[in-house]
C-alpha cells in the first residue's frame, strides 16, 4: 500500500493530512509495466491495423480485391479480374479480354477442364517520362488479346488448355516490377496456374531485373518478350522474345548499306540520359557491326528523361553535321519518342541545302507525322529504319513482301474491331501478338493434365523445326544457338519519307 503520507498531495482530501489516493491500490511495478506494454501493443496494433485498412482503402484501385495498389498515382499490380479496374485508354480492350476470359472459364467449367493463365506484363499506364506511349501500351494489349482469341478460337473452341489473359501493370516506368512479379509467382501455384509471362516492357534495366528475378524464381515462369530488343536479355534463362534483337536490327541495316554506296560516313548519336539497355545495346551494335562506316567522333544527348532540355542538347548536333568531315548518315541510338525532335533539329541545320542526311535507326516500328515528313523532304533528311514491321504490310499496296502468317493476324485484328488498325505500324500489336502466340504454342506443346509454368519454360527452345508458331512477323522458331533471339523473324527496311531512297526488292532481312 501507500508510501509516506506527508509527501503526497493532500489537497481536496476529505481527511486532513491524508492524500486523496491513500487507499488506491498500489499496482506492482512489474504489473504496471506489463499492463502498459500490453496497452501499448494493443494501441500499436490498432493503429497499425487502422493504418493498414486506411492504406488499403486509400491505395486501392477499383474494387478492394482488384489486386491493384495505387503507387505514385498509378494503379500497379496484377489484374486477374480484368474488369475490376479500367486503365486509361484501355477500356474497350479490357472489356473484350474480360469477355474472352469469361468464355474460357465457362467453357472450362462446362467441360471440367482446367484453363491456364498468361500474364501480359507491361506498363499499362503512361506518363510524361514513360518509355511506352499510351498508344504503344494500347497496341501491345490489343496484340496480346488478338493472339488470345486466336488461341482459344472465337468461342473457346480450340484445343485445351484454353488461355486466360491477365494484365500485370508494372507502372509507366516499370519501377513496381518487384511487387508485380511476386504476385505472378503466387499465381503460378493457382488451381488455374499462370504458366507464362509475355510482354515484359521495353529494354530497360527494370525489365532485365524482372526477367532475372523470374529466371531464378522457383515458379519457373517462362518469359516471351514483345519489344525488349536489347542484347542483354539474350542469356537470361527462360526468356525469349518475339522481336529481333538490336544486333539483328543493325545487321539488317548493314545489309541495307551494302546496297547504298552513297552512304559511307556515319556519325553515331546516342541518348545518354538513362540506363537504357536498348540504347546501349544498339550503340554497341553500331560500333561493332558498322565500324567501317563510322567517323571518329560521336555525339550524345539527353533524351526522354528531360523533354525541356532536349532541344538544348540536340542543337550542337545540328551544328556538327555541317562541319567537316560532314557525315552522310546519322546512326541514331535513341528512343523513337525523341526522334521527332531530333529530326526537327537537324532540319534547321545550316548546311541542309548542301548535303542530304540519312538517319539510320533500328526500332520495332517507326512512323513520322505528315508535317515532319514534309519538313524532312524540304531539308534533305531521310530516315532508314530496320523494324519489326513495314508500314505497307497493313495497307493494300505493300511495297515489300510480307510474312506468311501476317494476313491471318491482320484479319483477326480487324475482326476485333478496335477501330484504330492504322496504328499497327508501330509494331507493338504484332510483336505482342507473336509473343502470346509463342507462349500458347509452348503451352500446347507441354500439354499435361497438371500443367506448370516450368513445363512451358522447358518447351521454349523446342519451338523449332516442325513446330509452327502462328506468328505474324515471320515463321518464328527458337534454338539453343540463338537462345532468346528468334530465328525467322523478318526485319524489313523502311524509308521515310516514302520514296526518298530506294528500297531493296525481295525478301527483307530474316533473323537467324
Amino acid at each position, binding site marked *: 500500500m501507500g508510501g509516506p503520507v506527508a509527501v503526497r498531495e493532500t489537497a481536496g482530501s476529505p481527511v486532513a493530512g491524508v492524500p486523496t489516493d491513500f487507499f488506491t491500490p*498500489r499496482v506492482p511495478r512489474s504489473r504496471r509495466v506489463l499492463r502498459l506494454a500490453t496497452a501499448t501493443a494493443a494501441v500499436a496494433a490498432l493503429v497499425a491495423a487502422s493504418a493498414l485498412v486506411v492504406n488499403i482503402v486509400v491505395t486501392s484501385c477499383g474494387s478492394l480485391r482488384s489486386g491493384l495498389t495505387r503507387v505514385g498515382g498509378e494503379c500497379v499490380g496484377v489484374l486477374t479480374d480484368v474488369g475490376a479496374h479500367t486503365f486509361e485508354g484501355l477500356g474497350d480492350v479490357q472489356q473484350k479480354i474480360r469477355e474472352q476470359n469469361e468464355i474460357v472459364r465457362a467453357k472450362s467449367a462446362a467441360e471440367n477442364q482446367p484453363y491456364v493463365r498468361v500474364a501480359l506484363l507491361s506498363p499499362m499506364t503512361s506518363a510524361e517520362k514513360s518509355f511506352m506511349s499510351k498508344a504503344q501500351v494500347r497496341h501491345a494489349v490489343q496484340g496480346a488479346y488478338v493472339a488470345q482469341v486466336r488461341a482459344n478460337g472465337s468461342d473457346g473452341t480450340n484445343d485445351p488448355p484454353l488461355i486466360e489473359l491477365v494484365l500485370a501493370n508494372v507502372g509507366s516506368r516499370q519501377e513496381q516490377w518487384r511487387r508485380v512479379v511476386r504476385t505472378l509467382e503466387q499465381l503460378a501455384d493457382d488451381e488455374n496456374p499462370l504458366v507464362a509471362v509475355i510482354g515484359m516492357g521495353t529494354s530497360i534495366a527494370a525489365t532485365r531485373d524482372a526477367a532475372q528475378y523470374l529466371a531464378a524464381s522457383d515458379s519457373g515462369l517462362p518469359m516471351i518478350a514483345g519489344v525488349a530488343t536489347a542484347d542483354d536479355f539474350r542469356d537470361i534463362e527462360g526468356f525469349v522474345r518475339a522481336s529481333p534483337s538490336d544486333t539483328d536490327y543493325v545487321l539488317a541495316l548493314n545489309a541495307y548499306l551494302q546496297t547504298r554506296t552513297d552512304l559511307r560516313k556515319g556519325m553515331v548519336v546516342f541518348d545518354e540520359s538513362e540506363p537504357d539497355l536498348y540504347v546501349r545495346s544498339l550503340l554497341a551494335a553500331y560500333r561493332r557491326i558498322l565500324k567501317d562506316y563510322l567517323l571518329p567522333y560521336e555525339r550524345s544527348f539527353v533524351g526522354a528523361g528531360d523533354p525541356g532540355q532536349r532541344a538544348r542538347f540536340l542543337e550542337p548536333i545540328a551544328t556538327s553535321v555541317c562541319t567537316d568531315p560532314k557525315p552522310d548518315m546519322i546512326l541514331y541510338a535513341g528512343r523513337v519518342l525523341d526522334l521527332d525532335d531530333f529530326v526537327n533539329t537537324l532540319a534547321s541545320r545550316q548546311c541542309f541545302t548542301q548535303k542530304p542526311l540519312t538517319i539510320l535507326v533500328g526500332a520495332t516500328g517507326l512512323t513520322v507525322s505528315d508535317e515532319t515528313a514534309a519538313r524532312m523532304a524540304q531539308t534533305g533528311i531521310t530516315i532508314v529504319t530496320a523494324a519489326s514491321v513495314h508500314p505497307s504490310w497493313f495497307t493494300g499496296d505493300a511495297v515489300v513482301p510480307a510474312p506468311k502468317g501476317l494476313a491471318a493476324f491482320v484479319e483477326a485484328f480487324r475482326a476485333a474491331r478496335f477501330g484504330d488498325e492504322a496504328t499497327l505500324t508501330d509494331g507493338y500489336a504484332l510483336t505482342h501478338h507473336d509473343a502470346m502466340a509463342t507462349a500458347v504454342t509452348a503451352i500446347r506443346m507441354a500439354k499435361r493434365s497438371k500443367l506448370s509454368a516450368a513445363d512451358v519454360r522447358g518447351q521454349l527452345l523446342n519451338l523449332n523445326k516442325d513446330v509452327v508458331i502462328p506468328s505474324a512477323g515471320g515463321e518464328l522458331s527458337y534454338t539453343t544457338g540463338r537462345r532468346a533471339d528468334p530465328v525467322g523473324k523478318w526485319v524489313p527496311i523502311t524509308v521515310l519519307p516514302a520514296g526518298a531512297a530506294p528500297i531493296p526488292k525481295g525478301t527483307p532481312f530474316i533473323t537467324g
Partner: protein
Amino acid sequence: MTIHHRRHAVELVREVMTRGQGDAPPPVLIFEGDRGSGKTALLNGLAGLLDGRVPYAHIDLEADGRTGTPEVLYALAFHLGRPCPLYGTLHFPRLAVGKLVMDDDTLDLRDRDRARQQINALLREHRGVDRLVTTLREGAGDLPAVLPAAVQTPVRLSTRLLATVIHRLASWTWSSRLVLGRAQKWYGTQGGPRPRPPVETLIDLNRWHRRPGEANNARQRDELLWAAFRADLTAGLGRRLRRPWMPRCVALIDNADTRLGRHFLIELARGRETVQDEPLAVVATSRAPFLGHLPEAQQHLLAAEESLPTGRDIEQPRPRWVRYPLPALTEADVVHRMAREHPDLEPRIPRQIQQLGQGNPLVVSMLLTAAREVSSWPEGGEELALALARLEPAPADDTDRRQFTVEERLIRHLLGIPDANPLPVDEMDILTTCAAARTVEQATALAMRSGLLTADGYAGRLGLMFDSLRSADPDADPPPLRRLLLRRLAARDPDGGDGWNRVHALLRDECRARDDRTGERYHALALDQLEEVSGQFAAEVGTVPAADWLATLRAVTRAPTRRPHTAPPAQEAHRLARSTGVDPESRLGRVTRLVVGLRLAADPFTGRLRADLHDGLKRDYRALALHFPDDQSLLVAEADRHKGWADQWR
C-alpha cells in the same frame, strides 16, 4: 468538509484493509466516541477516500428500513456491487436468489412438490443482472445521504448492456443453466462436500424467513445468507484474492452499538473464524463499548497513536476486535485550527470554546463558526452565550434540515434528536434537572424521582440520552451537554419545584446524609454559600495533607454558577470575595479568593480577560503554601500552573 486530527484512524483502516498471503482475518475495527466526536464524519471521510478506488459499503444501522441481518446484507451487497477500477463489478447472485425466494410469501410450505415448482418458476422469471441489482436495491433500505450521487443509481449503462446480454442468454434453455445455474446450485452444496437439491434448501430458507420465531429459524436463515454473501464476494473477486497488493473491500458501519449492529457484527465475526483469506475489512463506529460480553482476549483497546497488533506473537494472537476511542481535540488543536481557519477571531475565544466543548469536534467546530460571526465581544463575560444564541447557517434547500440556534443544534446533536422531531419535553426536563447532579448515582436518583427511570435501569430514549450527559469521572470537567443543560437549569425559577436552588439543596442534603463532604461543599458552592465553603477549606489549611486539600478544592470549585458574568473575571472575583466581609489578607480571605477564583476559572462562560484572575490565584496559592508544612511544593506547583495560564490568557 475536511475533517481534522483523524489521520491515525485512517491509517488504522488501511492496516485492516492490507492483505498478506494466508493471513488470519483482520480484526473488526471499531471507532468509539461520544455524539459529536466525529465518528460519522470519519466514516464519510473514509467513504470519500475509498470511492472509486476500492469497493466499499457504507451503511448506518440507525437508519430506518433495516430490521435484521438480511437487510444489512442486501445493503452491503448493493454498495459493494458498484463498479470499481481493478475490481470490476461484484455481483451477488446467490444472495439475490435467496432474497427472491425469501420474499415469496405465496410459497406452499405444506406441499413440497408444488413449492419446488413455484421456486423454479420464480427463478425463471427473475433472470439477468439488472433484476438482481434491483432486487438487492429494494432490500437495501435507506442509503447514507452523504454517499456520492453515483451510488444512488448504480445500474450504469455498462451494467445495463451486460444485463441485456445475460438476460437474453438466460432466456434460452441451453444457456440459462450457465447464467443462473451456479448461483442456484450453490444452495445445494453451500461449499460443503455433501450435495443436496438446491431447491430443497431454498424451500427451507423461505420457511425460516416466514417463521422466524420457531426454533432456530432466524439464526439458520442469517447463517445461510451470510454464507451466500461470502460465497458471492469470494467468487466475484476471483483471482484478485490472490493478489496481495489489492486491498480488502471495506464495510463502513455507522452506529454499530445498536442492537441490530451488535448482532450483525457478532454474526460477521463468527463467520470469519474459519476463513483464511478474508476479502472484507469491517470498520464500525460506536458511542459506547458494546463488547462487554465477549472475552477480553478477543479485544484490544488501542491508545491514541498505537498501531494494530501484528498477530505474529504466538503468546498474543491477533484480536478479533480492535477498539479505538477517537481522541478528543486538545486545546492546542483548537487554537491551531482557529489560527488556520479563523485567523481574525479574538485569540482567547477558542480557549473558552475548548473549555465548553471538551474536544468534541462538532461542538468546537460549530462554536468556532458561530464565534466568527459575532461582531463585538462584551467587556465582562458570557461570550459563549452570544455564540450559542446565534442561528446556525441556513441549510441548503434540497435537504430536510431545519435551522436552529447553535445551542439547540448542539443539544439535538448530542442527544441524537432528528430535525423533524421536537425536543422531547419530559425527557428534556428531567435531563435538565439531572444536569445538577455531580455523580451518576445522584443523577439516576433524580431521574427515578421523576418516574421516567425505573428502578431496574434506564428506560427508553432517556437511557441513551443519559450516556451523553455524564462523564465517568465526577471530578472531570463536565461534558458539553451538561454545561448546556445547566444553563437551562439556571434559567428556571431558582426557588421553583425543580429550580436551581431546590435541586442543589436537595443534592447537598443528600450528600451530607451520605457524609460526602466533597459533594456537600460542591452543591453548597453551587448555592453560592461561599462563606461556609471557604470557612471549611480555611479550617483545613495545615491540618489535612496538601494533596487531599488540593484535590477537594479542585472538585468543589467545579461547582456551576447560575449567575451571569457581567464583569471581567478579576473584578468579579474581587467583588464576590469582598461580599463575605472577611479580611482579605487573612488566611480565610485568601482561601475565599481562591475558591471564588477557581470557580470562575472552571466556568467557560466566565469572561475571556482571565490573565489577572490567574495572577491572583498564583499569589494566593503561594501565600497559602507557607501554611502547608508537609508539602508546600504542591501549592507552589499549582501557583506556577496558574502563572502559565495567566500568560496564555493574556
